[in-house]
């Protein structure tokens, strides 16, 4: 006769299990490992594991001179490469008390804003793709190619140009630059309406993003979430308004703030920011003064002893450079305040009690670039 063994029956739905959204994953936007504790489909806990693209850039900067560091800061947040370079250039110019010609400031501001539009176009195309709308991928990259054409004509390469240098630019812009930028603005103003038609008004997208991933304003400030992600929660953190640099104090633009704090608010902030960037470019493109493309600089740059900090508004948040100098031609310590690092620290908090499918939408709306996290 068989014996019946009574085993305690565990309720499987109540157990938590861990899944690994590993370093190689189509929607983690790079090499980020997320260990997610789930109960059914609800996310209970999330631990990001970084370091899979940690290249030791801060240590490398201690052995490189300041113009060489520009090539390394390019590769930090490669989608707003010019803005990162701008921070280092402004820091060196402030420390050496060099006044750059007006032409440089105009050109740098225009190129920064073009870079911001290009970065937001790439964000839009990957956000749409993550939600399942593959058309967005092709539309966004098609329009981004126009900006890359402008860059290629003036600077020589499509991505990672290292165009700014302490004191100015490495070479002057192409004579066609002004005309091509104006043509692009005319073209893109029409196309951005298509973006709204495809994705913003789409009922599936709105259901998947409204009310998802709430981040309150106090949490945004406490976690240091800046940029469009912070402004979607009502945190007024635009460095271009509060600590203006280059030509930002002379142009009129709005700081876009939404107060709902959900994924849809972060999405709308970026869509409006693209339009604001075009407004800034239009105000500057016709008035570029003539002049030199670089100020007179010494061959070897040695910063005076002391500490310096420079903040700029990158496409993803506030980018800061902190330099401790001991008088040599290489910095003693160079620290990058990376916006994506702080944005990622809020991911655990805002994705709790949401579904795992929402995690992909939240990650897309925070828009992190992993090499900037890991440096």
């Amino acid at each position, binding site marked *: 006769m068989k014996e019946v063994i009574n085993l305690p029956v565990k309720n499987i739905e109540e157990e938590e299990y861990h899944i690994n959204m590993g370093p190689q994953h189509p929607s983690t936007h790079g090499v980020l490992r997320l260990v997610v504790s789930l109960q059914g489909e609800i996310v209970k806990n999330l631990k990001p594991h*970084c370091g899979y693209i940690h290249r030791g850039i801060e240590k490398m900067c201690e052995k490189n001179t300041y113009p060489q560091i520009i090539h390394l800061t390019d590769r930090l947040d490669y989608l707003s490469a010019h803005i990162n370079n701008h921070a280092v250039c402004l820091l060196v110019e402030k420390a050496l008390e060099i006044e750059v010609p007006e032409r440089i400031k105009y050109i740098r501001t225009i190129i920064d804003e073009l870079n911001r539009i290009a970065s937001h176009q790439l964000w839009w195309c990957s956000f749409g793709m993550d939600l399942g709308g593959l058309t967005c991928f092709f539309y966004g990259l098609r329009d981004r190619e126009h900006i890359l054409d402008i860059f290629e004509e003036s600077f020589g390469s499509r991505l990672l140009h290292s165009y700014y240098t302490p004191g100015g630019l490495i070479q002057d812009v192409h004579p066609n630059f002004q005309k091509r930028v104006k043509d692009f603005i005319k073209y893109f103003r029409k196309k951005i309406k298509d973006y709204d038609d495809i994705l913003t008004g789409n009922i599936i997208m709105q259901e998947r993003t409204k009310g998802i991933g709430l981040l309150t304003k106090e949490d945004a400030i406490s976690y240091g979430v800046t940029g469009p992600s912070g402004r979607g929660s009502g945190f007024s953190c635009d460095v271009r308004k509060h600590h203006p640099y280059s030509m930002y104090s002379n142009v009129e633009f709005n700081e876009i703030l939404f107060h709902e704090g959900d994924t849809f608010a972060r999405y709308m902030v970026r869509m409006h920011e693209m339009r604001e960037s075009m407004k800034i470019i239009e105000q500057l493109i016709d008035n570029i003064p003539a002049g030199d493309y670089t100020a007179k600089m010494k061959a070897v740059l040695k910063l005076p002893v002391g500490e310096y900090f420079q*903040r700029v508004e990158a496409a993803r948040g506030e980018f800061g450079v902190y330099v401790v100098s001991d008088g040599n031609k290489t910095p003693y310590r160079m620290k990058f305040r990376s916006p994506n690092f702080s944005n990622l620290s809020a991911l655990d908090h805002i994705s709790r009690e949401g579904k795992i499918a929402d995690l992909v939408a939240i990650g897309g709306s925070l828009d992190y670039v992993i090499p900037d996290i890991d440096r």
Partner: protein
Amino acid sequence: MDNTTLKEKVLSLVPGAEFLENKQYITFIIPVEKMHDLARNLKNEPEFNFDYLFCLSGVDMVKYLEIVYHLESTTHRHELVLKVRTADRENPAVDTVCDIWKTADFHEREVYDLLGIKFNHHPDMRRIFLDDDWKGHPLRKDYIDEVNIVEL
């Protein structure tokens, strides 16, 4: 709040603080044991309201290890820099501020990983970028790596 009032108020809160001249922001060196209470005061007092910690870095000055906190207030828009120094290179330990500013969580893990400074009462004190079994702390000035790092 303008710079002179800020300077006087901080000095009145922590008499042992040392003010550094000629810096970009108002900079103080705070004794290690007073840092946490001062940080809590700076965040909670309405006249200061330093609620935004925008940079937490560690620096290895060979004689001592230094942690630099860059603070800003989102309402009053004044900025402050606090430095904490510890001469102990074997087992440096400082109180954490991640219960006051949540962004300090990841930043302190990074400082521990690259410079070796431990933070007391941190909820999750382990390495963030390098493998858990990595030997040494790379950003220290006495970090030796014959294979990879070229001495100028």
